[in-house]
């Protein structure tokens, strides 16, 4: 791992739950993420805003070790986990959902949710069922345990993914476009669920391009474009930022993106 100016420990006035230090992910000549540093505030819902192709999902991939870092490092609870294998990340207390629905099609809702729980809690088998039941209750999936994903609506499938991610009792939850393709009612419900998880102290990072939802849900926003952070701050500050308006909302400041 290269040590450059950007990978030196930055100082925050709080203890970040997870940190990216000068993270860069290059694919050949394409700089998907190019030197991003951020430290996630504990107990907050943070959001990464940015147009398609701005590097949001790649950054999430870097933070979950699913894509290789070209430069920089990722840290969790003071531990550099840049060399940790992707299947160990969940044991650090980092859980995630995906941009698209990724459920096992031949398996029931119950099986899909328990999948990671019994890996993480393999030495406490008796706890597992309780955790899965709790996650099912939290996401409003009671009664659907025996259904297969293709028997559920799209919104319900996304809930199964969230249930799977929270059943492992993570310290940090990454949500990649959690409300994409959902109805307005569903979006409101999911947003309420995230806020209720926050009230229990779960730190979350959402990647989204739905500005309205982000402003409504997040405590802190990062804006990305062309692989770099272009602004950060509280939602009102970031949304009003000139660079963000230019890059993300378009020159005419369309608000319906």
């Amino acid at each position, binding site marked *: 791992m290269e040590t450059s100016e950007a990978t030196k420990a930055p100082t925050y006035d709080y203890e970040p739950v997870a940190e990216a230090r000068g993270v860069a992910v290059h694919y050949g000549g394409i700089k998907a993420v190019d030197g991003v540093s951020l430290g996630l505030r504990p107990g907050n819902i943070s959001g990464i805003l940015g147009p398609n192709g701005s590097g949001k999902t790649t950054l999430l991939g870097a933070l979950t070790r*699913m894509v290789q870092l070209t430069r920089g490092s990722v840290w969790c609870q003071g531990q550099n986990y840049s060399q940790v294998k992707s*299947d160990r990340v969940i044991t650090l207390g980092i859980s995630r959902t995906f941009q698209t629905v990724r459920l096992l099609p031949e398996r029931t809702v119950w099986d899909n949710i328990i*999948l990671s729980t019994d890996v993480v809690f393999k030495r406490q088998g008796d706890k597992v069922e309780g955790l899965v039941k709790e996650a099912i209750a939290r996401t409003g999936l009671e009664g659907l345990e025996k*259904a297969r994903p293709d028997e559920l609506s799209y919104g319900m499938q996304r809930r199964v993914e969230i249930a799977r991610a929270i059943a492992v009792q993570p310290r940090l939850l990454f949500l990649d476009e959690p409300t994409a393709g959902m109805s307005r009612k569903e979006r409101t419900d999911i947003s309420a669920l995230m806020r209720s998880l926050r009230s229990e102290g779960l730190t979350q990072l959402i990647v989204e391009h739905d500005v309205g939802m982000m402003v409504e849900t997040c405590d802190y926003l990062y804006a990305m474009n062309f692989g770099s952070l272009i602004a950060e701050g509280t939602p009102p500050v970031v949304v009003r930022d000139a660079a963000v308006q230019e890059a993300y909302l378009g020159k005419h400041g369309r608000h319906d993106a």
Partner: protein
Amino acid sequence: MMGWIDQNEFLIGSTLTVFLLAISIQIPLRLGVISFASIGYYAIGGYGTAILMTQYDVSTWTSVVVASVAAAVVATLLGLIISRLNGLYLAMATVSFSLLLSAIAVNGGSVTGGAVGLFGVIGDITIWHTAGIAVVIIFLVSFTERGKLSRRIDATREDSQLASAMGINVTAYRRLSFPISGLIGGLAGALAVNLKTAINPESVNFTLVVLALTIIIIGGQASWIGALAGSLFFVWLPEILVFVGEWEEVVYGTLVVFAAVLVPGGVVGVFNDWRHRRSVARERPKVALLEAAAGESDAELTQSRSGKDG
């Protein structure tokens, strides 16, 4: 009954050894590893047993065990060498491995008997031994088809990246499938050579790969029941199709194509779907009610989803 078994001993034995070969292919396949190396393991098991028995006078069972373990060792090494490959590249590498072994069989001189092969492999393995081994393998395999292990196997196959994110060590599972596949493939070859009393390069060539794969496709990839159903079907079908005479292969091919198109999950897949539908039918009204309560309107959904691609 006993009379019928005696009469059909060869077909029953073939069914069982083909079944073991199919299981050997199925195990990595269930983990998303398309490997054709099982033919190579089968060749190692078969030739190994034949060489030990006919040229070194080693006892039947010792030969079978040594040859099968040798296949497992070779499989482990192969797994390590090709572990960086994926999908079709991995499949190609395993095809090369199997073809390499059949080339060795042809060019092995007096050790492998060249193109003629080895014959006179007469041991003391009965149909009951073979059946017993098959039952043990079924028993062990059935453990991987239940509970958490089966979930992890499914996740590794369906979406390895997701499986990793769920904490499943995909590489370890896939790597482990090689020695297991090697041992069972080797065993299939060792038992087959005892059944047929002979082995030659013709019997370990690519035709065998195609046969074993078709068995799994028709029977179903997910379960040993599929492999068994497929083995029964394909070993006995030519017997049944004798009446169509010279058209046998055409009918055979047509059946395979239809099965692959119409029942992609295999015979077992059809059965599982039926069983799931039956169990869910009772829950159905509840599901509909819950969905309605969640305020999902399809029209609204379609609208908000259109023009959205992440």
